């Protein structure tokens, strides 16, 4: 038995689905950000697997994975700053209760 591209793609789909489920159903904003990080990492696995199995001499997928890491770092920094600002104002980070911008 050898490892194929499908193993990595199915594993990445499972991790992405777990992250999507958490991002849809969690009420804690920090946990929601953690689930979004999980989804970004699953996409990174897909890119690196495609780069390894389909164009192993070009390394393009690994370059894209580096850019996704850059964007994820920026996203988590700004997201946690927003969560801290919300917590300072409302003393709660339950997403179902943060509805002051709802019309």
């Amino acid at each position, binding site marked *: 038995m050898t490892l194929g591209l499908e193993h990595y793609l199915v*594993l990445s*789909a499972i*991790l992405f689905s777990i992250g999507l489920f958490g991002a*849809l159903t969690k009420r804690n904003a920090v946990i929601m950000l953690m689930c979004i990080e999980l989804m970004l990492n699953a996409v990174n696995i897909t890119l690196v697997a495609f780069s390894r*199995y389909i164009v192993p001499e070009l390394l393009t997928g690994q370059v894209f994975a580096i850019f996704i890491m850059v964007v994820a770092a920026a996203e988590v920094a700004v997201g946690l700053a927003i969560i801290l600002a919300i917590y300072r104002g409302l003393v709660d980070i339950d997403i179902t209760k943060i509805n002051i911008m709802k019309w």
Partner: protein
Amino acid sequence: MGLVIAFWILAIVGIVSAIGVVMLRNVFHAALSLVMCFLTIAGLYITLSADFLAAVQILVYVGAISVLIILAIMMTRNVQRGNPFNKMIIPAFIIVAVFLGVMIYTVTSTPWQISSIPPVEPTTSGLAARLFGKSGFVLPVVIGATLLLSAIVGAIVLAREK
């Protein structure tokens, strides 16, 4: 053969710790489970012969982002039982199950054109040539640097005391 065993161990540990992020009641335990998942993903990069990405994964995710998340958990309340579900759990489960089924069906039924060339090792010099060399990704690197700078300034402005 060792690669196959390593892949299966990493896959099982990664999926279990990802489920732990969603299911654990204690937010701090969920964050530690997320760190475990990041570590297994770094191991998966090593099995894909992406050594530089594995090092970057450990430095950025396990080192920096997990510390940031744990800091945010410490500064907000309700660590002990602060990980509840909302009311959308059944529709979300149905959506995710349908999505996962479609993805697995598509992935396993597509005839991928697998290349027979062995992967380049080590990847660091190749990645540097792709990022900074001629006809490379120089402009996206500069845009990424600008994005990081603006994200730092934005985070400071947002989190600052008035």
